[in-house]
């Protein structure tokens, strides 16, 4: 194992982690604001990937350029989901909430299965096959753009949460729903917005990964399971921590796999996950 290989694995890990981070942010946002785990989150990502694929296959749009389209469509899907599925169970028992997002998972996954069959499909992107070499370290154009896109998307979300009145109201709502209500901050509209933003993040991530990853009805799990680990690592509901968690997970995955055996890389991810939860139940950057 040379230093060059080790460094390369860290760079590869960061590239991969950037995307995991964006997915984790989407999960963490809903968790933080509504205390709700969206088990169906990976399915939104999968649908975004199908949208990207068909935009490429039908209209010849380069996958990366579909980002605005998938973001808007998935935003709408999130708002719709909130209004039709989530709102009715929000005041119900936690079990009903878990079941409802799990039901969504089944619905979204098997609708895709029926419509698209379990075939792997992949958009061909010139960008994805290009290779960028910097100081002996190598990344593909597709990964680099996905990494940069993830950082831009998460930064935009952070800026929104930190500096806009609506963003502050979302944070206020997350911290104390009743107090927010007493100040006229109506949860319903903001919850819908949070769902829209969360699924829009899945929309962006879906378009970003499509240049280098195939899509099939089960592909959501490939990203969601590491993202859950990133969320836990970053502190449940801590959107900022989720990004950092994603980067750590990416490096653990690739560098860990390279240093030991690639077959165990997912196991390493969960080992770190369980270890952190054991020592710091609130997550590495939990509050």
């Amino acid at each position: 194992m040379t230093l060059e290989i080790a460094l390369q694995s860290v760079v590869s890990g960061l590239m991969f982690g950037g995307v995991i981070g964006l997915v984790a942010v989407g999960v963490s946002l809903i968790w933080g604001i509504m205390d709700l785990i969206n088990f169906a989150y990976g399915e939104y990502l999968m649908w975004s990937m199908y949208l990207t694929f068909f935009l490429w296959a039908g209209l010849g749009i380069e996958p990366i350029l579909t980002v605005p389209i998938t973001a808007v469509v998935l935003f709408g899907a999130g708002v719709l989901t909130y209004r039709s599925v989530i709102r009715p169970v929000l005041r119900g028992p936690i079990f009903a909430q878990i079941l409802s997002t799990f039901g969504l998972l089944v619905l979204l996954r098997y609708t895709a299965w029926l419509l698209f069959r379990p075939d792997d499909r992949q958009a061909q992107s010139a960008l994805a096959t290009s290779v960028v070499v910097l100081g002996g370290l190598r990344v593909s154009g597709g990964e680099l753009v996905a990494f940069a896109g993830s950082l831009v998307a998460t930064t935009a979300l952070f800026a929104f949460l930190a500096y806009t009145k609506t963003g502050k109201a979302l944070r206020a709502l997350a911290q104390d729903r009743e107090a927010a209500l007493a100040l006229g901050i109506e949860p319903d509209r903001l919850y819908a917005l949070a769902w829209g933003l969360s699924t829009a993040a899945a929309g962006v991530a879906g378009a970003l990964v499509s240049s280098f990853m195939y899509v099939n009805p089960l592909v959501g799990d490939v990203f969601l399971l590491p993202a859950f680990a990133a969320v836990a690592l970053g502190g449940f509901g801590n959107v900022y921590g989720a990004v950092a968690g994603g980067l750590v997970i990416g490096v653990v995955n690739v560098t860990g796999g390279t240093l030991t055996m690639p077959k165990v890389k997912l196991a390493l991810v969960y080992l770190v996950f369980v270890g952190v939860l054991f020592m710091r139940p609130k997550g590495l950057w939990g509050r």
Partner: protein
Amino acid sequence: MLLTVGDVHATYGRFDVLRGISVGVAAGEIVAVLGPNGAGKSTLLKAIAGFLPPRQGSIRLSDEEIAGLRPSALLRKGVVYVMQRSSVFPKLTILENLEMGAYIRPSSPEVKADIDRVLGLFPQLAGRRHQRAEGLSGGERRMLEIGRALLLHPKVLLLDEPTMGLAPLVADLIFEKILELRAAGTTVLMVEQNARLALEVSDRAYVLEQGQVRVEGRGQELLTSDAVRRAYLGGAAPR
């Protein structure tokens, strides 16, 4: 009367908490609501503030029926509520907490000016405006909550036990601020468990028991009333 509560009944689950309660607050008054635990004091404020719509009865602001309106609608009419427990947003800065106080107002230079004015009112907060609210003491949190409420220029300010859990000196300070507010034209309806102190600052007071008004009168009168002293002030020597 600015605020009139007439024969209000309200239910928590299967429990009747308010059982035909009637209360009135005139413009510019400070009115205190006293009574033992479980008498329905907090529930009364929640009913007025839109958190617990009454089962029957009326709540009127001037001549307008406001029973059953949502909190956000009531805020726009000038009914502002500060709840009993601490309700600052701990992870937001003091300034952001105040901005949330003005949430229903469109952003404007006037809002900024109002925030500066509130910070002027509470110098302890002004110097730490960019710190998170979680670092504040109990009294400072109360001040922030009251300051937040002021940004909506309330016609009626509903305060639920504003001095609960505060050291006596701090409690005095809070009451001082409440008097200042009244002097500036705000009407206050407050629930207090520190009856002696409440009666000292209030114009009038209602004593509740089991969801109904038991005694009503001017603050100073009730303070000296034997019945009230026995029942609610514990008959102990004045502090």
